[in-house]
């Protein structure tokens, strides 16, 4: 630059040839050219420009033409700013300096905001008057813009802070002084005058609730604290009542550039409403669970596509399956193999149409037994009529069904028995009418036979009544006693002895034996032991080789007994019953002292 200055045609300027320059200009120029800092000299009334290499980039495209030119020409674009500054220094001789001065320079044809630190220092001539300005300076545009950007960033952050839905505050120092709070924070605590005051002072109610100690700990240890649905009692209106809020919050320690703890960042969200709603939901769910598990029925529910995703406890107790193991379509495997396809068909039909599901099927109980169950389900629909869910029940009807079957069986059985009884009674009437010598006699015999029949049924009936499980059995002892005893009148000295082990008779055998004993007793009364004075009948039995051996022994003291020449109807009936219905044998031993009748009856037949 020194070379460049020397070769400049100064003679053509008011400064004249450098050989004529005063000492003050020479000295100043020497300092300028030897300085590594951007330095310029404005000289003379026109403020002609001289500058060093470091200064050269400042006028940009105006270098090197700026050399020797008047300042007002070189800096025409910013003269309204710098002109008065030059003027002031030239007039008063006072030094001037400015920092981050904005100069709207035109560079490459474009006006730009540029920022500068620079100083103007008066240069005095030999006569003491101000003859020039010594200028040093540097551009700070980049630094200014960077700072401005940082400030804008900070402001944006501040806005975000302010508008954040959650409450935010920054607390400074060990006393936790509010430095920044946003609107949400102010609303949460119900106060506005927080900035610059310690937490303990503006929110006295939180002191006893342990929050200051918590802040102290975070500040001291540098470890953040996170609280979930923490209960805080706040007085949210001036002098108002304490109000419980549930807060999610974070205490985040802040550290400054020097690495020292500077404060605590607080971020809090009021979750009172959500937490209470959640509590209410839990309570409602608990109530629902209690209800669905308090009933006997199994309950289940499915998605609209029929995917089972809920069963109550009863289902798992009943089936003995692990929780969750029957989700989806696994329920079908719990059904009896013969019912699975049918149940699928009914279920698919319901899923397709939304019609209620109703079916009886056998479900595998935890015992391994398949038990009859009624399955029912209904769907619920949304506002558009779309199926939202299916809700179903299973009700065990196994015992009911068995009881109903048993009842039906008994009813059928009784129906048959009644029909059979009428048929027997009809036969009795015909046969008695045919054999009785008179109407009175017929009436007498018929009453006796019907009576025997009725007694047999009475014994069977009471056996049913006392023990519903016994298959309609009567005792041989009771039967013999009931049927023969009425024919014996002890007052006349006649005797009846009955002895034998307990033998249980089926209903058919009971009827047959009642009729047989009735006929034998009737014959005894007409012709045998019960006709004689002091007569006796001994009925004895024993069981051997699955055969009942029964002896009917009559003893007559006052006369001799002869076999009848023609078998009467009673004997025929006894023979027919013993050999036919009872599939046994009957034999008569006609002794002069009375008839002995021997029955051999298979026990198997007596059970019918």
């Amino acid at each position, binding site marked *: 630059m020194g070379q460049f200055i020397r070769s400049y045609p100064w003679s053509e300027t008011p400064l004249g040839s450098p050989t004529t320059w005063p000492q003050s200009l020479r000295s100043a120029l020497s300092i300028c050219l030897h300085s590594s800092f951007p330095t310029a000299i404005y000289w003379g009334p026109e403020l002609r420009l001289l500058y060093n290499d470091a200064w050269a980039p400042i006028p940009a495209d105006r270098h090197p033409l700026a050399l020797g030119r008047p300042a007002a020409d070189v800096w025409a674009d910013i003269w309204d700013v710098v002109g008065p500054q030059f003027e002031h220094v030239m007039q008063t001789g006072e030094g001037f300096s400015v920092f981050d001065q904005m100069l709207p320079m035109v560079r490459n044809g474009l006006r730009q905001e540029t920022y500068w630190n620079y100083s103007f220092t008066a240069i005095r001539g030999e006569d003491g008057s101000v003859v020039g300005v010594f200028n040093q300076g540097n551009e700070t545009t980049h630094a200014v813009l960077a700072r401005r950007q940082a400030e804008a960033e900070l402001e944006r952050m501040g806005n975000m802070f302010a508008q954040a839905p959650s409450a935010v505050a920054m607390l400074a120092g060990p006393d936790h002084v509010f430095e920044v709070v946003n609107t949400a924070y102010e609303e949460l605590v119900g106060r506005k005058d927080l900035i610059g005051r310690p937490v303990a002072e503006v929110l006295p109610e939180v002191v006893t609730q342990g929050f200051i100690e918590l802040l102290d700990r975070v500040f001291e240890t540098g470890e953040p604290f996170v609280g979930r649905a923490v209960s805080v009692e706040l007085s949210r209106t001036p002098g108002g009542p304490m109000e419980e809020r549930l807060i999610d919050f974070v205490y985040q320690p802040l550290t400054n550039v020097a690495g020292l703890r500077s404060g605590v960042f607080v971020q809090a969200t009021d979750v009172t409403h959500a937490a209470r709603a959640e509590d209410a939901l839990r309570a409602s769910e608990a109530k629902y669970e209690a209800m669905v598990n308090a009933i006997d029925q199994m309950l289940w529910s499915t998605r609209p596509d029929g995917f089972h995703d809920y069963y109550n406890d009863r289902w798992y107790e009943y089936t003995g399956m692990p929780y969750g193991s029957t989700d989806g379509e696994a329920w079908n495997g719990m059904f009896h193999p013969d019912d699975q396809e049918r149940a699928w068909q009914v279920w698919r039909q319901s899923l397709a149409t939304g019609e209620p599901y109703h079916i009886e099927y056998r479900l595998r109980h935890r015992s391994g037994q398949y038990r009859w169950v009624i399955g029912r389900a209904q769907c619920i629909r949304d506002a558009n009529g779309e199926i939202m869910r299916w809700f179903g029940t299973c009700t065990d009807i196994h015992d009911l069904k068995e009881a109903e079957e048993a009842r039906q069986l008994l009813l059928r059985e009784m129906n048959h028995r009644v029909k059979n009884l*009428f048929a*027997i009674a009809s*036969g*009795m009437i*015909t046969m008695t009418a045919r054999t009785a010598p008179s109407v009175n006699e017929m009436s007498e015999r018929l009453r006796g036979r019907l009576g025997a029949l009725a007694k047999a049924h009475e014994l069977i009936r009471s056996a049913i009544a006392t023990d519903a499980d016994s298959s309609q059995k009567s005792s041989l002892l009771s039967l013999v006693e009931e049927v023969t005893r009425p024919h014996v009148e002890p007052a006349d000295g006649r005797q009846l002895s009955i002895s034998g082990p307990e033998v249980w008779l089926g209903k058919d055998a009971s009827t047959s034996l009642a009729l047989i004993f009735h006929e034998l007793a009737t014959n005894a009364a007409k012709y045998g032991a019960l006709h004689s004075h002091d007569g006796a009948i001994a009925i004895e039995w024993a069981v051997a080789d699955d055969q009942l051996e029964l002896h009917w022994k009559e003893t007559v003291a006052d006369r001799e007994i002869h076999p009848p020449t023609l078998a009467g109807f009673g004997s*025929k009936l006894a023979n*027919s019953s013993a050999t*036919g219905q009872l599939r046994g044998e009957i034999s008569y031993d006609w002794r002069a002292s009375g008839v002995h009748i021997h029955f051999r009856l298979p026990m198997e037949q007596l059970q019918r």
Partner: protein
Amino acid sequence: MKEIDNITRSALDGRRVLIVEDEPFIAFDLADAIESAGGTVVGPAATVRQALALIDTEQVEAAILDVNLPDGDIGPVIAALTNEDVQLLVHTGAGLGPELERQYPSLRVFSKPTPPPVLASVLAATLAQRRDQPHS
């Protein structure tokens, strides 16, 4: 009634009717009705075994059969008599049962109690019809 009796009497005249019935009163009643109508009673048999033995040894042209017998149901007896082309009539309290109903759908079944003279006249009418038809 008198008229029916007369027709029955002539129709059953000489016909041999098997009675299978385990209840003696009913058996005797049936036997009496058949005999009153001029028929000849074969039996009565009270068991399947007795009935089969009678079919083996006796000539049978018609039969009145009970279903439930002490040694089982009447099935074997029906089978034996169907082969012999005998007029059958079932007299039962409980019905034939699904198995026999399927096997013998055209069998005539009378519910107990049906008065024996009615059964006798039904048999007589059937036998009379058959007599009118030419045999091949």
